[in-house]
């Protein structure tokens, strides 16, 4: 009877320690921190009739700040960025990398992106060339 009681008291102590640790963890993970992420980039909404003639960067290095718990998400679930090309014109164009969409939590703030500017070059598609997707 006494041994069972002792075992239960040990369980209570362990659970109390676990709860203390969890509360501390919950508070610690809310502290703001900064982290650099290497995010793969994609291009969206390329206007029809235009083609990309330069090589876009495969990844951008994004520095974000926010609660530590939210900074764990990109590691656990992955993240990717996309550059909206709506309004692209033939010729060289520059895009501010901070205006790209990175699918990060609202509470995370992007403070730096490297490269800061994405330089892309577009040209008109040859009007005589058929769309390979329809063949």
């Amino acid at each position, binding site marked *: 009877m006494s041994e069972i*009681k002792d075992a*239960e*008291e040990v*369980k*209570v*102590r362990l*659970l*109390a*320690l*676990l*709860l*203390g*640790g*969890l*509360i*501390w*963890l*919950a508070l*610690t*993970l809310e502290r703001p921190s900064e982290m650099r992420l290497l995010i793969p980039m994609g291009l969206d909404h390329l206007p029809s009739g235009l083609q990309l003639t330069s090589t876009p960067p495969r990844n951008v290095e994004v520095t974000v700040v926010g609660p530590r*718990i*939210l900074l*764990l*998400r990109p590691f*656990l679930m992955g993240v990717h960025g996309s550059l909206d090309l709506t309004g692209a014109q033939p010729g060289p164009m520059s895009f501010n990398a901070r205006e790209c969409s990175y699918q990060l*939590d609202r509470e995370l703030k992007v403070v730096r992106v490297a490269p800061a500017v994405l330089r892309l070059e577009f040209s008109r598609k040859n009007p005589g060339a058929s769309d390979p997707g329809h063949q």
Partner: protein
Amino acid sequence: MTFLLQNIGVLQDLLDLSLTALIIVRLSRLMKTVLALRILAALSALVVGHLLARLLSLETVRLLFDTFLASSVVVLAVIFQTDIRRAFAALIRSRAVKDIEMSDLIDELVFAVGGLSEKRIGALIVIERSIQVDSYLAVGTEIDAKVTSELISSIFLPYSPIHDGAVIIQHGKLTRAGCFLPLTQNLEVSKSLGTRHRAAMGLSELVDAVVIVVSEETGAVSVFVNGKRTTNLDPPALGKLLRRLVEQRWLK
């Protein structure tokens, strides 16, 4: 010194974690083991739920977990008000060295209890020590008289209208009789214990009073202090025990 300054954040975290754990361990001791296990497990699950909801940005679920966590303090205080009261009572209990000075009151008590025990007349006598017992008493008749063996014996005689309750001794005077005491909530108490013994144990769990019980069935004399029972006391042993437990200053 430089090491300390460089690692002040880590040290703060360690101190923070240690103190949090210590406070929770201490608080969990106030509750009964089985209840503490359930409550700690439920609270841990709530905190884990909060962390997962936060990590996965599940805002509504997080709101629910946070609401449960925030209200859990009030809910626990309401559910465990008796345990909390008992814990605070235990905190303020005096740990002073016991005064073994003789007193007439104890002689009168021992004589009365001895007589009642011989005649197998049930009795319940509370001697207040450093914590007031008034807030734990129900009903009762105010008396305010000098403690004498004749008075105590006459109160507990079966035809007395106030025999079926406790006699209260405060500051060396018999202040009340026929009082009902809170029964013990301890589930481990033997089922063979009657209501008089359960009442004695219940009060002694809440305050530091010394409670004397004379069994109506066997005439056995028991003393309850801090929820613990000392039984089968003969008059000399009862006198010795009372002189050890009751200091002169509580009889003034």
